[in-house]
């Protein structure tokens, strides 16, 4: 049994020991311990070092607000995390812990030299220094500052754990399972509501767990608690422990993070480490209690100095005495109760130092009974002890004057500066807080969400009040949900109500420049720093916070905000509400990235869309490229080919014989109805009225601003039916835009749109032999050149499947696109491959498709255009139905800048040396010898090596480009200037003879 453990006491399992390691040293604790309670049971208080001064620190709390006792925790490869609160981390077998932010060992930290230099490092000193010599910032100052920064070390391996998420809908969510939360849940559940009760602790019960002496309804507190939990469960209440409400979002959506495995010795297979719950609650009860405030005095940060309530928790929940000789310093009644409990457990309470002149007589009487010396009207002016407190200096205060010091030996100092309602989640809702001058706390004000606050969160103190208030909140919530409920009261015996006073710093006799009274323990912000900030003009609490870093530690101000505000308010000379409130922001406690990411990791990070033919491509060695959400076969290397060789082979085969391409990702929209043609006329730039059924046309779609948004070939299948295709990435956008116009501008049109992108698998067959390959597979359509000329469409059967067959070409060769129902896509592909075998049919990918179309000067929207290119700019002026009175984007084409001369126009570009391929994105100038910044007249949009032409080709957007045809321009590259000639974009078969085959 460890020295400070009290046999049989607490809620830990004294029968089950758990072994763990801290900084390489083996320890044992008990099942139910936290790392902090287990170390304290061995008399170890020193658990960490502070951020700036590397001061030795021990736990100051027993909960999630802990700023000091932060450790690295690990359970083997990839499972390390820094900055874990030792006060929250439950013990598990084999847990490995390490201390942080030390140069050397925890007890001998070279970094503590900063502590000796502290007079040179006041708040904001870095804004005033490190500026000269100027060059030293990059090379010396900043690297040094950065190396000194940070607490724990970052993980260095990939996390093997899983993370999960759920949506949950509930009538009532109760946050906090202390006395008021339990009662709120109980009342609402009894009234028949769907209730969820969450608590961040491993056990429900809140403060009751640390106050077993209370009696509720005639039962000891813990018996009552057991009974309530049984009843809640029987009423179907969802009870979630180890679950932190991290954020309160719009319309009663609460984010919960549930810890599932960090406390387990072994992780069950497939079990997630944490689960994020996105809860939508009709009503919310916030019963998060209150946080105890530290007192601000010189030396208040030594290991062994902790909150009185924390000591009480270590005693009752963990059966651990935090020391043998304790001094209590307090301004609140609650610490007296802690003193009495510790005294009963065998800790010598040397003195209760109360800053108030006249503490309650009943408390004094109890102290007398226990033989505890009471020093009322006293202050603490200092502490001693290197790695653990060894003594405390106390002084009487009379009429504001601090009297002579007296030193008291002790091994722990338990402090309480009163309590602050925990309103963090309420603050997330932008609900207003109201300053209560009596209690000198902020209480909830105007609500913006459908929530209730109960118990200590409303400044209510004592169990009877909390229970009644919780029951009332539960009943109110039930009533708001339309269920009958009436709150009732419970008899509480041995209640522990209390009041207190609120302080800024405690009075002291030390010279103010020599006082180091800590407010933000982790960030080493002292009262002096706050006063300095105010003296320097930081008069808003946000300025004070940012200048001093007070409240920016990993506890996010839970320990420090109120004390900081009190001192700032005193220094500014204005009441606290006028100095302002810092806003609490989510998450309530630090929350793993993994929990936010949830299932969105690796293969399920985001959807990867695959076509029906993807499996064939994969089996045949395709290299893929991501295009919007799709993955597409990029090229099909054979026998160790690189990309260039593969593409050249694919191009040559297609031009010489026949190539096959998976075009299934193209967006497809069925436009149907009596007004289909009118709709098409209004949406696309082109005229559609005269397009006969059975024919297709290349369509251009503009935004209302006149710039090209999308394009594609559109087939007219009947008088009232169009098969529209869009770009791969543009499909959802285009359909949305069409629906928008149809529903909101032209609701009178009888036309309907249906996405058929995934209904059809699309295979493109291109090359002089395409017809020969296809002919034997087609039924119900004569695909001869005469009967089925270029830009035809027909419904027929191909390879036995129902098909929509297009004759069109994006390569310049004789081409067909065959659409069959998606489930037959792969079979169609295989049938075509078989039929094409005698012709050496060659599968090609997107890169070859790009080269072939570029040889023909066909554009890719988004590559040869960006969002600033008009049809005229792109050489597509011919696609504009000039006779049409209107279409989307038409008016914008007449705007002054869109008709101004000198716009960038799409042209062809041929390098003088055909072996040189321009880089896509390369910039074009007229005079390569001009100084920088150069006048650029355009850029290369597409550039390839053309195996067909035996040279490089490019397309470019160039100012006034079409008028410059034949001119030589320059492309300055780092390796030298490339000369190129402006040409037409049609590099190959400009007359289109090959289409006529």
């Amino acid at each position, binding site marked *: 049994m460890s020295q400070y453990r009290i046999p049989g006491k607490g809620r830990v399992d004294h029968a089950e020991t758990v072994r763990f390691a801290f900084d390489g040293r083996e320890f044992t604790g008990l099942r139910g311990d936290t790392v902090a309670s287990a170390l304290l049971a061995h008399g170890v208080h020193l658990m960490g070092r502070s951020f700036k001064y590397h001061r030795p620190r021990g736990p100051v709390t027993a909960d999630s607000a802990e700023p000091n006792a932060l450790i690295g925790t690990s359970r083997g490869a990839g*499972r390390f995390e820094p900055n874990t609160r030792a006060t929250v981390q439950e013990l598990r077998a084999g847990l490995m812990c390490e201390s942080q932010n030390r140069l050397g060992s925890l007890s001998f930290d070279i970094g503590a030299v900063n502590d000796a230099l502290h007079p040179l490092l006041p708040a904001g000193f870095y804004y005033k220094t490190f500026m000269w010599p100027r060059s030293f910032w990059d090379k010396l100052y900043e690297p040094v500052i950065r190396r000194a920064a940070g607490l724990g070390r970052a993980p260095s391996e990939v996390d093997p754990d899983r993370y999960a998420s759920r949506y949950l809908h509930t009538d009532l969510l109760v946050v906090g399972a202390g006395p008021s939360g339990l009662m709120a849940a109980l009342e609402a559940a009894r009234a028949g509501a769907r209730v969820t009760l969450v608590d961040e602790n491993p056990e429900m019960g809140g403060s009751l767990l640390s106050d077993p002496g209370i009696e509720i309804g005639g039962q000891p507190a813990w018996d009552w608690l057991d009974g309530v939990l049984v009843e809640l469960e029987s009423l179907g209440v969802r009870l979630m422990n180890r679950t932190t409400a991290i954020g309160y979002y719009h319309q009663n959506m609460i984010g919960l993070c549930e810890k599932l495995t960090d406390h387990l*010795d*072994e992780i*069950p*297979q497939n079990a997630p480490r944490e689960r994020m719950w996105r809860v939508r609650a009709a009503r919310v009860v916030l019963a998060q209690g209150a946080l105890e405030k530290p007192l601000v005095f010189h030396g208040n940060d030594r290991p062994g100095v902790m909150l009185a309530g924390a000591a009480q928790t270590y005693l009752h929940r963990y059966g651990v005495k935090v020391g043998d000789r304790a001094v209590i310093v307090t301004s609140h009644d609650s610490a007296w109760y802690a003193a009495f409990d510790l005294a009963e457990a065998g800790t010598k309470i040397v003195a209760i130092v109360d800053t108030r002149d006249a503490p309650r007589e009943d408390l004094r009487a109890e102290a007398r009974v226990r033989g505890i010396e009471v020093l009322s009207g006293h202050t603490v002016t200092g502490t001693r002890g290197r790695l653990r407190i060894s003594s405390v200096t106390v002084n009487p205060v009379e009429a504001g004057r601090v009297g002579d010091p007296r030193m008291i030996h002790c091994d722990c100092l338990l402090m309480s500066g009163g309590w602050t309602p925990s309103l963090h989640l309420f603050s997330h809702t932008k609900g207003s807080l109201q300053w209560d001058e009596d209690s000198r706390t902020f209480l909830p004000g105007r609500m913006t969400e459908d929530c209730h606050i109960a118990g200590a969160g409303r400044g209510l103190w004592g169990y009877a009040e909390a229970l009644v208030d919780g029951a009332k909140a539960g009943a109110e919530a039930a009533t708001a949900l339309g269920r009958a409920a009436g709150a009732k009261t419970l008899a509480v015996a041995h209640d522990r109500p209390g009041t207190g006073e609120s302080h800024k710093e405690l009075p002291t006799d030390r010279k103010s420049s020599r006082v180091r009274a800590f407010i933000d323990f982790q960030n080493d912000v002292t009262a002096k720093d706050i006063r300095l900030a105010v003296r320097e003009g930081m008069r808003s609490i946000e300025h004070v916070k940012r200048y001093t870093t007070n409240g920016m530690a990993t506890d996010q101000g839970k320990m420090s905000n109120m004390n900081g505000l009190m001192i700032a308010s005193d220094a500014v000379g204005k009441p606290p509400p006028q100095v302002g409130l810092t806003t609490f922001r989510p998450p309530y406690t630090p929350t793993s990235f993994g929990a936010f990411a949830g299932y969105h990791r690796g293969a399920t990070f985001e959807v990867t869309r695959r076509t029906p033919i993807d499996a064939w491509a994969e089996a045949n060695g395709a290299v893929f490229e991501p295009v919007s959400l799709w993955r597409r076969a990029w090229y099909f290397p054979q026998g160790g080919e690189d990309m260039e060789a593969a593409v050249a082979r694919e191009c040559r085969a297609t031009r010489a014989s026949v190539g096959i391409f998976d075009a299934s990702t193209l967006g497809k929209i069925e436009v149907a109805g009596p007004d289909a043609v009118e709709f098409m006329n209004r949406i696309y730039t082109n005229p559609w009225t005269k397009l006969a059924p059975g024919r297709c046309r290349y369509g251009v779609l503009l935004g209302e601003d006149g710039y090209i948004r999308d394009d594609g070939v559109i087939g007219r299948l009947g008088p009232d039916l169009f098969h529209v295709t869009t770009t791969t990435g543009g499909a959802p956008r285009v359909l949305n835009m069409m629906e928008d116009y149809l529903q909101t501008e032209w609701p009178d049109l009888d036309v309907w749109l*249906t996405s058929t992108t995934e209904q059809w698998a699309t295979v493109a067959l291109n090359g002089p032999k395409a017809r020969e390959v296809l002919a034997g597979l087609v039924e119900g359509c004569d695909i001869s050149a005469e009967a089925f000329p270029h830009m035809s469409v027909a419904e027929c059967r191909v390879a036995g499947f129902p098909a929509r067959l297009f004759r069109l070409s994006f390569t310049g060769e004789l081409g067909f696109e065959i659409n069959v129902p998606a489930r037959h896509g792969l079979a169609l592909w295989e049938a075509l491959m078989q039929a094409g075998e005698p012709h050496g049919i060659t599968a090609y990918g997107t890169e070859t498709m790009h080269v072939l179309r570029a040889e023909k000067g066909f554009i890719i929207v988004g590559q040869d255009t960006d969002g600033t290119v008009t049809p005229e700019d792109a050489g597509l002026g011919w696609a504009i139905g000039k006779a049409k009175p209107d279409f989307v984007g038409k008016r914008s084409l007449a705007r002054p800048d869109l008709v101004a001369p000198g716009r960038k126009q799409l042209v062809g570009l041929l390098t003088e040396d055909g072996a040189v391929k321009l880089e896509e994105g390369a910039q074009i100038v007229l005079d390569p010898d001009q100084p920088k910044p150069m006048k650029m007249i355009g850029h290369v949009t597409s550039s390839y090596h053309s195996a067909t032409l035996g040279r490089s080709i490019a397309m470019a957007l160039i100012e006034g480009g079409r008028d410059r045809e034949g001119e030589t321009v320059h492309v300055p590259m780092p390796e030298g200037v490339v000369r190129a000639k402006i040409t037409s974009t049609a590099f190959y078969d400009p007359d289109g003879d090959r289409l006529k085959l």
Partner: protein
Amino acid sequence: MMTNQTHDFTLAEATARVRIDELAPVSRFSLRVRPAQAATLGRALGLDLPDRIGRIAEAQGRTALCLGPDEWLICAPEAARDAIVAAARKAYEATPHSLTEISDREISYRISGPAAQELLTIACPRDLDLLAPGCAVRTVFDTVQVVLWRDGPQDFRLDVWRSFAPHVRALLEIGQAELAAGL
């Protein structure tokens, strides 16, 4: 060093609480028609088209689900496909509409078992308590648009666009394994 994987995970355990099955294809159509003419067209198709979003009508093995004020999803055995197309074509002149075949657009999964509803909550933001058996809605699962049918208290179907289906299936299987792990 600790060992973290101790529990042997079996298929039986995974499916005890919830099963995921891919369903055989059926004929599916997206039907669009002005609400005022829905009844007329419904008669032509042998269906009493429901006018409330989320409601289903069934007759002669054909099902009509109202997805929007002028949109219905028609499902039928594959053998009925041609008859439906023909009936619609006949009615077109008097009752203009759009009947577009989407049989191959979606893959359907059945999710069934005591934990079926819980499994869906891993990625469906709707309150499934409000989705009554015999109803169906279009909604999202993770980022993916789906049609979610509730055939019974523990019996759901998901229609997912074909290329999104593997993602949905992968998530469901992760959830299934998680449910079997019991945490």
